[in-house]
């Protein structure tokens, strides 16, 4: 199939489904031209590149030169990117065709893709339910066959949770594996771009294209391929995570079935202890708002974005930020300002930062013994639209199994492994694989094995 045929094929589906699902906020009119260039190269006899002609959707917080990029926020509704993010340049160099930009929770803050200036994204398996978030648009684009692959970003579960809810594969790479240059910063010590695709192998192909050191991101590093310490990978199970009563029984069964499949195939399965991960969500909701309050200071109506008139320059900031930021962004900026304020810094930020190191050490200890950890993605399947949006804490609890890997900076993959029935609809359930730093290869290997033995 030519790149043009591929783009045309996805465009037909987008025209048919996007109005109902709201995965794309913009489908690029020049996607067809890009595809034409790729086809011309191939017919001129050039060897096809890693992603030659493959159509990819991109989350609305990754800059694409000349295209609008709003992070689903009113404050950036009319902002046009002036350069390509490093991941976009790498996709283009590998021959990929960028199809459009996808919906998300404003500035990537949320777990449902409801808190967007463009309205909510719907789950293709049941449109009365959320897609998960914050990279919900990218997950739905792949799940509903509106793109071959997609890029999302994670700060705390924003790729893996929607991947799980929508029944696609999503990877949160090792912190530093993929350049953040051109990704709108939310919490810089956690943010990471990662791929979505239908299969583990396609996810790996996209990851191999976007990974690697970039002089424009000093935290990026070249990927040293990790290999299992043991001949046949040893799999760890965080028993405490599986025992809690916050999980639906049938969701737990899907994860247990994955574990049994591995055990049955001769994998050595051991319990691992991650004692400090019970603090992970608390640490996360100190560190993230703190970094958010600093990173979002740049949206002041002076250099770009919405600008509201005030009586003086300071009053203009108040009016611009009050009108431009949505409720969850305002909540996090205020919370972050609180935990960083004089008199509270030691009790909150410094303490959280120390516990974060302890969480990282828990994983380091576990990975002395095992090569990969198998865990749930979410405690329940996709929830109803509107169910949690007014209750921030219940939304935060969505990411309880996901934020430990973000805080530790280690890679984690979500892959579909089963389904549960709710209101007569079959909803996908994912399984999470967590690896040591730069251990993406192990996740892909075990992920492919599970994929073949569903």
């Amino acid at each position: 199939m030519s790149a043009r045929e591929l783009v045309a094929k996805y465009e037909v589906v987008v025209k048919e489904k996007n109005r109902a699902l709201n995965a794309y906020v913009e489908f690029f009119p020049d996607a067809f031209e890009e595809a034409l260039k790729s086809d011309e190269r191939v017919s001129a006899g050039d060897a096809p590149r890693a992603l030659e002609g493959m159509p990819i959707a991109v989350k609305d917080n990754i800059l694409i030169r000349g295209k609008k990029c709003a992070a689903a926020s009113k404050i950036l509704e009319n902002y046009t990117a002036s350069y390509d993010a490093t991941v976009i340049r790498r996709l283009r160099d590998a021959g990929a065709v960028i199809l459009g930009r996808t919906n998300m929770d404003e500035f990537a803050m949320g777990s449902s893709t409801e808190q967007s200036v463009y309205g909510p994204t719907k789950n293709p398996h049941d449109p009365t339910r959320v897609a998960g978030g914050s990279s919900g648009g990218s997950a739905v684009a792949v799940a509903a066959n509106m793109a071959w692959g997609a890029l999302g970003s994670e700060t705390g579960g924003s790729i893996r949770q929607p991947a799980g809810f929508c029944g696609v594969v999503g990877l949160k790479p090792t912190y530093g594996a993929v350049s953040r240059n051109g990704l709108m910063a939310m919490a810089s010590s956690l943010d990471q771009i990662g791929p979505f695709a239908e299969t583990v192998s396609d996810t790996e192909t996209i990851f191999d294209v976007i990974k690697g050191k970039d002089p424009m991101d000093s935290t990026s590093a070249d990927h040293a391929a990790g290999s299992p310490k043991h001949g046949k990978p040893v799999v760890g199970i965080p028993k405490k995570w599986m025992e809690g009563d916050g999980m639906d029984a049938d969701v737990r069964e899907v994860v247990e079935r994955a574990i049994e499949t591995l055990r049955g195939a001769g994998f050595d399965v051991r319990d691992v202890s991650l004692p400090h991960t019970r603090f992970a969500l608390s640490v996360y909701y100190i560190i993230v708002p703190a970094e958010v309050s600093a990173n979002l200071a740049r949206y002041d109506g002076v250099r770009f974005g919405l600008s509201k008139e005030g009586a003086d320059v300071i009053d203009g900031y108040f009016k611009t930020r009050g009108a431009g930021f949505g409720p969850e962004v305002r909540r996090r900026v205020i919370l972050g300002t609180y935990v960083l304020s004089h008199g509270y810094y030691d009790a909150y930020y410094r303490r959280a930062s120390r516990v974060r190191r302890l969480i990282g050490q828990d994983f380091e200890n576990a990975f002395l013994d095992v090569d990969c950890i198998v865990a749930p993605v979410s405690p329940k399947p996709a929830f109803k639209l509107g169910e949690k949006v007014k209750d921030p804490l219940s939304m935060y609890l969505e990411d309880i199994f996901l934020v430990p890997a973000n805080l530790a900076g280690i890679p984690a993959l979500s892959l579909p492994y089963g389904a549960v029935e709710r209101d007569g609809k079959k909803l996908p359930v994912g399984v999470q694989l967590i690896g040591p730093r730069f251990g993406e290869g192990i996740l892909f290997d075990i992920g492919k094995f599970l994929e073949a033995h569903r």
Partner: protein
Amino acid sequence: MQNACGAPEKNFGTRAAFMITLETVKKMAELARIELDAEESRALAKDLEQILDYIAVLKEANTEGTREFSVSAVNEFRRDDAHPFDGAPALAAAFPHAEHGFASVKKVIEK
């Protein structure tokens, strides 16, 4: 009540251990340069109480002798070279208020 992974579940029904006053929210909003109306300020005070109540579990962690987290153990250096950038006109075009190609702001210092 313990949630999965042993983390505390939401504190239903019990009185929040933290009291966040409207004055505190107002002060934070002032520091953060965000205009809030009275209704949202009240809601935010409640949300903050709930969230701070939840994260209070951190008191139980033994952090003695633990250093703070750092992203990387090594410093990265890069040559201080000039690189051509042709996006300047696009950057300037994004200025909400511009004069002669520069971003313009209201006077900051009063006479």
